[in-house]
């Protein structure tokens, strides 16, 4: 827990210090936007934001602000960054949650299937396929899906309208399906590959040999003994994949014009809107770290060896 807080603080410091390399003038211009940046306004902004103060004073002030969910004002959209994120965040959480669920539902049985048929043609085919999916970057897959399903066949909607509420997106299969599938494909490959090797490892363990020696059938060995133990590392994998998923969401949201945190970040980055980039980076990181922490806790709950060791 303490470590997670330290990690979050560390990220905050890194991002803040990185941006303070830009120098007070540039930061003030970025906050004001290019049109309003008269020399007087720049000087006033530097003073108001405390960019002329020592870095630790600025840092303390920034931490205080961020703890109060005050992320400054977007130069492009002229709205508080917190307001923008309040709209965008639930949509991103919906996308990430739905796609991760989909990925798990597809990947776990796939991994087991590959182990059962290991070193047979179907294993090689699935392994090659998962390589291709792994190598297929989300932007490419997204475009291809749009070309085939949205433009050629008109089954799904190619973009999400920014005015849609979270609930409207969640209940509209024509809008959510393609982004969800694209983001899921990013992790399905790694999840199933991991599940495959995790199963292989589990099958090499003593308890599996014991179960076989006691006459357990192949199905029972696979699902009662190996599968359940192979699942435990998947929890860790899920926690460790969160940064990848968050990064993937940025791309997927850009491809599909999905109005979440990622689109907010990239648009801000292209427009040099520093407060938004800092805000979304910090919030996304904090959420990712929190997710990893949750995975750690779940891991401890799922694995009796850790559960009992801590008593």
């Amino acid at each position, binding site marked *: 827990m303490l470590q997670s807080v330290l990690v979050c603080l560390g990220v905050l410091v890194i991002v803040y210090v990185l941006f303070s390399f830009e120098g007070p003038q540039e930061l003030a211009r970025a906050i004001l936007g290019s049109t309003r940046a008269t020399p007087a306004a720049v000087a006033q902004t530097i003073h108001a934001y405390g960019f002329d103060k020592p870095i630790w004073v600025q840092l303390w002030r920034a931490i205080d602000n961020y703890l109060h969910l005050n992320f400054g004002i977007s130069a492009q959209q002229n709205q508080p960054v917190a307001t923008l994120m309040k709209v965008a965040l639930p949509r991103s959480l919906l996308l990430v949650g739905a796609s991760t669920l989909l990925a798990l539902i597809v990947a776990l049985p796939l991994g087991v299937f590959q182990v059962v048929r290991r070193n047979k043609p179907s294993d090689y085919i699935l392994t090659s396929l998962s390589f291709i999916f*792994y190598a297929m970057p989300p932007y490419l897959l997204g475009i291809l899906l749009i070309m085939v399903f949205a433009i050629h066949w008109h089954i799904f909607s190619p973009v999400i309208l920014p005015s849609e509420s979270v609930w409207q997106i969640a209940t509209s299969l024509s809008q959510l399906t393609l982004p969800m599938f694209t983001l899921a494909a990013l992790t399905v490959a790694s999840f199933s590959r991991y599940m495959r090797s995790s199963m292989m490892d589990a099958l090499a363990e003593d308890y599996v040999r014991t179960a076989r020696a006691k006459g357990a059938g192949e199905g029972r060995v696979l699902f009662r003994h190996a599968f359940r133990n192979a699942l435990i590392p998947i929890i860790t994998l899920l926690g460790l994949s969160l940064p990848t998923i968050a*990064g993937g969401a940025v791309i997927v949201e850009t491809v599909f014009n999905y109005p979440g945190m990622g689109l907010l970040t990239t648009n801000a*980055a292209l427009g040099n809107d520093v407060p938004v980039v800092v805000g*979304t980076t910090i919030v*996304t*990181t904090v959420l*990712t770290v929190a997710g990893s922490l949750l995975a*750690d806790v779940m891991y401890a709950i799922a694995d009796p060896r*850790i559960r009992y060791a801590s008593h």
Partner: protein
Amino acid sequence: MPATSDIGPGPVMNDPLSGVSRAVALSGLDPSESPLTAPPGVPAAPEGGEAGSTGSIWRLIGRVFVENRLAVVGVVILFVMLVFCFLGPFVYHSGQTSIILRPISAPGSCGKGLIPGPPCPLGTDVNGFDVLGRLMLGGQTSLEVGLAAAAVATILGVVYGAVAGFVGGWLDAVMMRLVDTLLSIPSLLLLIVFAVLFKPGKDVLILIIGGLAWLYPARLVRGETLTLRTREYVQAVRVMGGTGRRIVYRHIIPNAVGTIVVNATFQVADAILALAALSFLQLGIQLPQTDWGQMLSGGTGYAEDGYWWLILPAGACIVLVVVAFNFVGDALRDSLEVRLQQR
């Protein structure tokens, strides 16, 4: 609260694709650590690590290609792509400084507008550049950045990880906490932050991408070092008065070289993908320079017009190269895994 992600019994993870097996590869180097899985009477083959000379790694690589067909496919793809990108421009001359504008329908030619046809086999892009020539040029950038960034990441990570693992104690703890901190940030977001800050060119992109990717080899090598530093030959060097520097550079890193090479192969693929992602967001390589990701990005807006040649060639190149690097890396790793081979 048990922090299991970094020091606990969870597998030493790098990237999700190959985490477990790489962890297995670690223990696979030391047959005495897994006595139950090695069948009695079958001595574990002295794999790349134990012999410790650079000769063994070449023998290992040689054997991989005899045994593994996917590895051969991967090497062939890489070879063809390298020839295509770096030698192709000498055969296929396309003036990347000149813009080819063609009338919407020129009578008597199959080339209409941007559409593929002579003199441009893959058509022209939105700015009037020949796509086939652009593909070679973009490939040069993608491959150069990928290889160089992987080299940067590997060198940084190996030294960092070896020092942390070898020195141990509080320095190790601090160094690894730093790695954890950086690892829990979605790296694409950090890439975006850097791109906003520096408006980078090719050289800076290499440093940024490599500078963010060194975390994986650092973790890997640190774990490897932790097991290697207790070995007899390291103790022997110590007894003979060898310095810490000598142990790290002459004994620990050479013995970890198999793991390092495997990781470096994956690093190249990841770096190419990272560059393409950044360029796709229009934050990477800027016009008039190009890379495959930027070509994709340029074609995205025209997907609905059916301009497939703006998307598919560049996309196929990315996928092929990344798949090829993964094939090679996977084959190398499999050959390191004594446990899996003997099953």
